[in-house]
């Protein structure tokens, strides 16, 4: 007995690099990033849109990559946590997460960083409530969020970018 799956060639740009990959037609973007391309920074916490661990930036919008089909990103630009630093220069947000001890286990961190970066691009000076509202789709079970919120505030204060 055989299963019916076919593969699709997908042309995309990932973290600034033109990237061509072969996706199983059943792959989500998260699966393609992790299993086909080897970018394992985006994490799977739930695979149904409820935790934000898989959050990536798709053409300027943050999406839960577990809810996007890999084939859909043909022609798109994808930015993942691996693309936040400039070589060995961490972004202000990454530095702020380290300085504020905004991670414990770190599994939620890639999703929070990608989501918070998008917030600061739109709103360079968010209030505490605006940060909490924006990040409500990203679950963290370790920190109680305090230090994450403070890290975003710190990065905002320093002018992200």
């Amino acid at each position, binding site marked *: 007995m*055989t*299963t019916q799956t076919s593969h699709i060639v997908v042309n995309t740009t990932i973290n600034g690099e033109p990237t061509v990959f072969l996706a199983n037609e059943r792959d989500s973007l998260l699966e393609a990033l992790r299993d086909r391309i080897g970018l394992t920074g985006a994490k*799977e916490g739930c695979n149904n849109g409820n*935790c934000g661990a898989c959050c990536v930036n798709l053409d300027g919008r943050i999406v839960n990559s577990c809810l996007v089909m890999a084939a859909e990103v043909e022609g798109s630009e994808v930015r993942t946590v691996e693309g936040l630093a400039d070589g060995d220069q961490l972004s202000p947000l990454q530095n702020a997460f380290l300085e504020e*001890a905004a*991670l414990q286990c770190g599994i939620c961190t890639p999703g929070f960083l990608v989501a918070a970066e998008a917030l600061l691009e739109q709103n360079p000076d968010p209030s505490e409530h605006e940060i909490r509202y924006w990040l409500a789709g990203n679950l963290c*079970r370790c*920190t109680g969020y305090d230090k994450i*919120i403070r890290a975003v505030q710190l990065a905002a204060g320093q002018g992200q970018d």
Partner: protein
Amino acid sequence: MVTAQSEVASQYNVIGTRPIRHDGVDKVTGAAQYGADLQLPGMLYGRVLRSPHAHARIVSIDTSKAAALEGVKSVITNADFPRASDDVIDTGEGSAQLNWLLDNVIASDKALYKGHAIAAVAAVDHHIAEDAIELIEVEYELLPPVLDVRDAMLDTAPKLHDGLKTGEMDGSKSDGDSNTASHLRFAKGDMEAGFADADVVIEREFVTSMAHQGYIEPHNGTAYWRADGTLDVWTSTQGSFVVRDSVAPLVQLSPSQVKVTPMEIGGGFGGKIPVYLEPLAAILSRNTGRPVQLTMNREEVLLATGPTSGTYMRVKMGAKRDGTLTAGEVYLAFEAGAYPGSPVGAGAMCALAPYDIPNQVIDGYDVVVNKPKTAAYRAPGAPQAEFATEAVINELAEQLQIDPLELRLQNAAVEGASRADGFTYGVIGNVECMQAAQDSSHWNSELAGPNQGRGVAQGFWFNIGFESSAYAQVNGDGTVPLVLGSTDIGGTRASIAMQLAETLGISAEEVRPHVVDTNSVGYTQVTGGSRTTFAGGWAAYECAMDIRRQMAERAAQIWEVDAAEVEYGDDAVIRGPADDEGNERSFGFKELAGQLAASGGHIVGRADVNKTSSGPAFATHIVDVEVDPDTGKVDVLRYTAVQDAGTAIHPAYVEGQMQGGAAQGIGMALNEEYYYDESGDLKNASLLDYRMPTALDLPMIEPIIVEVPNPGHPYGVRGVGEVPIIPPAPAIQAAIADAVGLRMNELPISPRAILEATLPEEG
């Protein structure tokens, strides 16, 4: 943010500072490798078939169609495992009987909860593995499920296990089969006299739901069974040695044939101590000769791992009019899940632990039900037991019209007080936490509006010590790689490295901590029990003392003097006697490090500790809430967490533990529950419906670190991880009572529960 050094920290150079954690960069760039990130050449992907029924006899399993699917390499059931003995192994925060452990990993004759593993497959691709499990045909004979602890304890209840008897503390067993696996009792004093002395007696019943640890990373396990009969396991675990010692007997290998490499771990909270997937991956790999990786999805995590016990509890307490507590009687019935082993024993020891009450009886029952086998969850057993006792303390304070913190101070356990289980306290910070709460700006502020209320509660947790190992070498440039066996869940590489640095007199950055596999470091117990910074730090301290001794000896050798004449100072300067011309002789750490290779070779320090002592931890939390009378929703407006850390090694990560623990406790108090229907189907097995707090649900959690150094540790460390999950539920329960006059004695206090209690019944 207040980062001024504490009084305790001012004695130290490194301890009490906030260096960037050593593993931080990898964790903000996505480079850190968690278990599911591992990819090995030729690796197969596994999937588990799980029981759709809560209680059923497995009549037959037909795997032939699945095995015939192209791309499927192996299909296994319980029959593929060797028979397991009923030996009991130590798992750090508990123990496991091997045959039950195996049956929980993969069911033998019966499925005992919805989600119980029935069969597993390995295939070239995870999509194919998913298709394959659909093709496995299982015939079940349905049995009536037992879902509530009180029902399960009835003689008439269907029994989960043939031959399970109730064990008593004296070793005796019940005659007939029972779902109650054990009963324990701790007692002191004279209950009759205690209640006779009381002017006020309150007796209440409490019910709590099962709740999950909720780590964001699902379980994973990868195994490679080599042709030479050795097995490699990679997994996100709290205890690599526990995994080794669990997997080896289940697959009949010697521990020496099994190497476990701990990958980075995405949260555990106690739930990543038991093995679930690793033994399945091992047998699938043996059958295929290829590495096999298994990961769970979120539904599987909620159905088949964790959670902590649901409970039924009764508490009766008596007090004199002046507030003196005279007697406490506690009854705890804990759901163990499908196999014995709830944390009721720890709950029983914690129940009245913050107080010096002369007359006490605490009974605990460990009861099996058709729900997942419970696992340790942050201070296992204590949040439930102390919810019940703290709620009664708060109600007593109200009836006696005594301030709830005053009542606690009046009865607080202090050095020399003993618990009903016989333990007598040394130096503890119980009173200091209560006083710091009294002095806090929060406690001295006013509430701002209608339907708002304030509550306070105390918490106690033991913390444990046990085995940890460390070794470290001195490199020529003065840097020191430090090798550890403790998985780092929340910054323990940093907190252990800082204690090594402090002892050597070098900076935290000059120490490079590494977490390694079970063949590369001495036996190290789980990251759990709030033990890692305590015992791991102690090992680091002794390891550093070993290096100091060897460095002093080397200096003596270079100077050709007696080693006894050389001293390694706390400033990391190694001083010897003056030379013949009267010149002082000394080496800086780096200077001597640079001469080691040429003067006789490198230096390696090592230490193995096994500490039966620990540092009991206390916490006091204050919370303000607002109850929406129309929706029943409770908003947490303000939160303060006070805790005795002993010595806060890295205060930012101590605060992080306090804030994270409080957040989990708030979730347990207000939202999180296992919601089963009558057939034993879990109706909320997703993170949408199993509702953990989001950033929007919480205020800032203000941490107040109290430092009463633990005299039983070189740097005064107590554990910090667990106690902060205990006070939130009773503090919130009291705040709701203060706000709207309702004493809600069932957890969670969800909007539905509040509406049911407030709305008039519909006619």
